[in-house]
């Protein structure tokens, strides 16, 4: 028996979603800008002859506005350090923290939520009440204590952020898993006698990934902002490392005399956040199974 049917998508569902994403111009542009920013963050500091913490005494004043004449394309800060290099180095750190923290929360959150949602009943109850309790704890309090005890290291920052981010991810994934549990293909898998962990890994997780990806993309801006907030409070990354948040914090202090110190890092930060939001929206539309 031959089939007269036509194949709709070329490949699997991921290929299908990718096609739909490509048609969303805002999302594609955002993705392009993000990629450009990432490339700039990696390559940028090498383009400039100045090092990260090199103090340039050759200029008339310490904080000089952007100009091509002296090679400081973004100007220098109040310590005479080149802002161009610092901005890209800061972007690197911010993005790194955001990605790593999101990755941590993703891994823990998906595993926790998928298991709770699939198992249901008492296991689900206990697991989600645990999440509720953690949610209620004063988060800032813990971050500050941890920072004081362990010092302000980069790893600590993203661990702290990830440790909190997973809670919401778990809740979202649990809701999806709960709905999936009653779908017939999951029942078919149960009828095959597959062990629970196999079913969760093979059937539940791939089918929640769509939501997870969207949520992760929208979490990254939150993480960056949170890290910036920590930096603003003086709890973020330590010298000589810098982040966009620190730069914004420092720039805010010099706002009146050297506005470029605030404007440049803020602009980069804003562009990153907007692009991530557009991308997240585009991903949500592309991955929504109902649109198929």
């Amino acid at each position, binding site marked *: 028996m031959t089939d007269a049917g036509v*194949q709709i998508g070329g490949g699997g*569902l991921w290929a299908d979603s990718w096609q739909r994403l490509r048609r969303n111009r805002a999302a594609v542009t955002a993705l392009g800008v993000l990629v450009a920013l990432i490339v700039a963050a990696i390559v940028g500091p090498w383009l400039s002859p100045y090092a990260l913490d090199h103090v340039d005494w050759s200029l008339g004043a310490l904080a000089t506005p952007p100009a091509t004449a002296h090679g400081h394309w973004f100007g220098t800060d109040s310590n005479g350090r080149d802002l161009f290099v610092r901005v890209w180095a800061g972007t690197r750190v911010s993005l790194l923290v955001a990605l790593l923290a999101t990755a941590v929360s993703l891994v823990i959150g998906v595993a926790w939520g998928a298991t709770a949602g699939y198992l249901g009943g008492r296991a689900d109850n206990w697991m989600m009440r645990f999440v509720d309790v953690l949610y209620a704890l004063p988060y800032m309090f813990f971050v500050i204590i941890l920072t004081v005890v362990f010092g302000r290291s980069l790893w600590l920052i993203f661990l702290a952020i990830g440790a909190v981010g997973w809670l919401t991810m778990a809740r979202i994934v649990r809701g999806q898993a709960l709905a999936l549990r009653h779908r*017939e293909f999951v029942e078919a898998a*149960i009828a095959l*006698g597959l062990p629970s962990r196999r079913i969760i890994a093979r*059937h539940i997780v*791939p*089918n929640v990934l769509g939501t997870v990806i969207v949520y992760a993309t929208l979490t990254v801006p939150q993480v960056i902002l949170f890290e910036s907030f920590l930096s603003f409070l003086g709890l973020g990354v330590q010298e000589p490392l810098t982040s966009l948040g620190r730069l914004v914090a420092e720039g805010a202090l010099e706002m009146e005399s050297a506005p470029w110190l605030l404007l440049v890092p803020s602009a980069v930060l804003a562009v990153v956040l907007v692009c991530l939001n557009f991308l997240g929206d585009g991903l949500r539309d592309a991955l929504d199974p109902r649109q198929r």
Partner: protein
Amino acid sequence: MTAPLLQVERLVVRYPLGKPRLFGPRREIEALAGVSLDIAEGGTLGVVGESGSGKSTLARAVLGFVKPLSGEIRWRGELLDTTDKARMRPMRRVMQVVFQDPFGSLDPRMTAGASVFEALEALEGPASREAANERVAAVFREVGLDPSFARRYPHELSGGQCQRVAIARATVARPQLLICDEAVSALDVSVQAQIVNLLRDTCRRHGMALLFISHNLAVVRHLCADIAVLCQGRLVERAGREQLFSAPRDPYTQALLAAVPEPRPIARA
């Protein structure tokens, strides 16, 4: 006399209604109120009823998705605790199911071939790649699909094709009992006939017993030699095909038969 393949005795299943209350028992609905029936090896039993009759609950109890309040389920005479996952594992090989929604019963993120392969691996254990691929291709041909369909995803297949894949998945390990829960109800009319024929052929070819649950009396009549009628969780009549359709004894069965619209012209005044 050998024990029947599957035997259900005085099965009672109750579903809780509403939220659990702080004091007092939860309200419950009785989906099955003591149903007994059996299927012989290679036999065909149709279970018919309307919504609320408990026919789907019966299938779910046999498969272990719901825990019966009381009653027994026996396989070849041996008592079976269907909710004991470990005990049921070897049973999965001999008892498989085809569900109602052809698209819903296949994982949308897996190809048709992968779904069938998963079943083969789960029920028969790991095997060599080539051997497994051969088996998958063979079962695809058996259900009337070209083996190249194995590369397709469920959303690229029609309802009838998805249901064929579901049947392939259920029969690849040669179960002794195939449970069909409204397996043709969600299909187009012209495709229903194909799948009915396929089920009939497949069960005959492999000596599989068939438990066919449906609200469609005409389809059940074509597939099953024995028919059980359920109403509100009770078995109201059980008879062979000829007997039930020509001389139904229970008034509910009679009402059911009278209500079935026949696709032939009715003389009008």
